[in-house]
């Protein structure tokens, strides 16, 4: 007796979909659509995310046969979504990325923080001190202001919680480069959150 596979792996679904089983492709869409939408929102905007979502799954459909299993299927889908988001941003860029350098931490001549411990600590509580919706709007806005290279690395590593190794593989760069980009993004974003509270970074 053949027991139906109640929860087939991504790879099994990909093989079935490549062989023309449209229900397998539908299952892939069901499994990944919410995650891809969230990723698209973080890499572009709520307005652009629906188009990125559609582009992503059309690309997944067209390129399923080229999935070689060299990376996890989820990482492969995320790579397609990340590229779709980047293409979309280039096509619809409304404004150049502006510098967030002003939010980098400040040091005196001896290399010591100029802010006090209390000032430096307050960012940890920004989500308790600001209105939830205000923070959500500001967060989306500032992530969109990051340079593309920083935003991709930060979103994948810190917001989507991927490992540094997986992000490096997905973006085709060294792990050290991922760490450097994520670090710069964290410093700028940390300083921005501090500035929202009227406190120097």
């Amino acid at each position, binding site marked *: 007796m053949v027991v139906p596979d109640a929860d087939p792996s991504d790879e099994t679904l990909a093989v079935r979909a490549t062989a023309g089983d449209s229900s397998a492709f539908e299952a892939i869409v069901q499994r990944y659509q919410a995650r891809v939408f969230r990723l698209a929102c973080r890499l572009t905007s709520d307005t652009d995310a629906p188009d990125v979502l559609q582009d992503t799954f059309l690309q997944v459909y067209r390129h399923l046969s080229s999935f070689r299993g060299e990376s996890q299927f989820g990482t492969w889908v995320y790579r397609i979504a990340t590229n779709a988001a980047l293409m979309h941003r280039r096509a619809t860029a409304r404004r150049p990325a502006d510098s967030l350098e002003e939010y980098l931490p400040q040091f005196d001549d001896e290399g010591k923080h100029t802010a006090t411990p209390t000032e430096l600590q307050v960012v940890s509580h920004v989500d308790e001190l600001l209105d939830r919706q205000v923070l959500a709007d500001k967060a989306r806005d500032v992530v969109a202001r990051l340079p593309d290279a920083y935003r991709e690395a930060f979103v994948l590593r810190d917001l989507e919680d991927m490992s540094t190794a997986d992000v490096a593989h997905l973006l085709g760069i060294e792990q050290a480069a991922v760490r450097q980009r994520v670090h710069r993004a*964290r410093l700028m974003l940390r300083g921005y959150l501090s500035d929202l509270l009227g406190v120097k970074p």
Partner: protein
Amino acid sequence: MTHIACASGVDLLMDFLEGVLPANVNAALEEHVAGCARCAAFVASYQATPRILRDATEATLPADVEASLKAFLRARTTAFKNP
């Protein structure tokens, strides 16, 4: 022991938290942070930043966007033909 100032310590923070620093540099940075209230506060807020932004940028797929995706794929692929 290598001397570390706040500014150079901040430069090393990501590598420190990922555990990829050479042991002697790692030990020097640990010692600096343990004795520097400013850096201890900075490290805490640096680590909190991803969590705060992850929570603040959470998004759920709206039903109309999901429906549009299905209609889009139905028109361009062999999937979603059967309701």
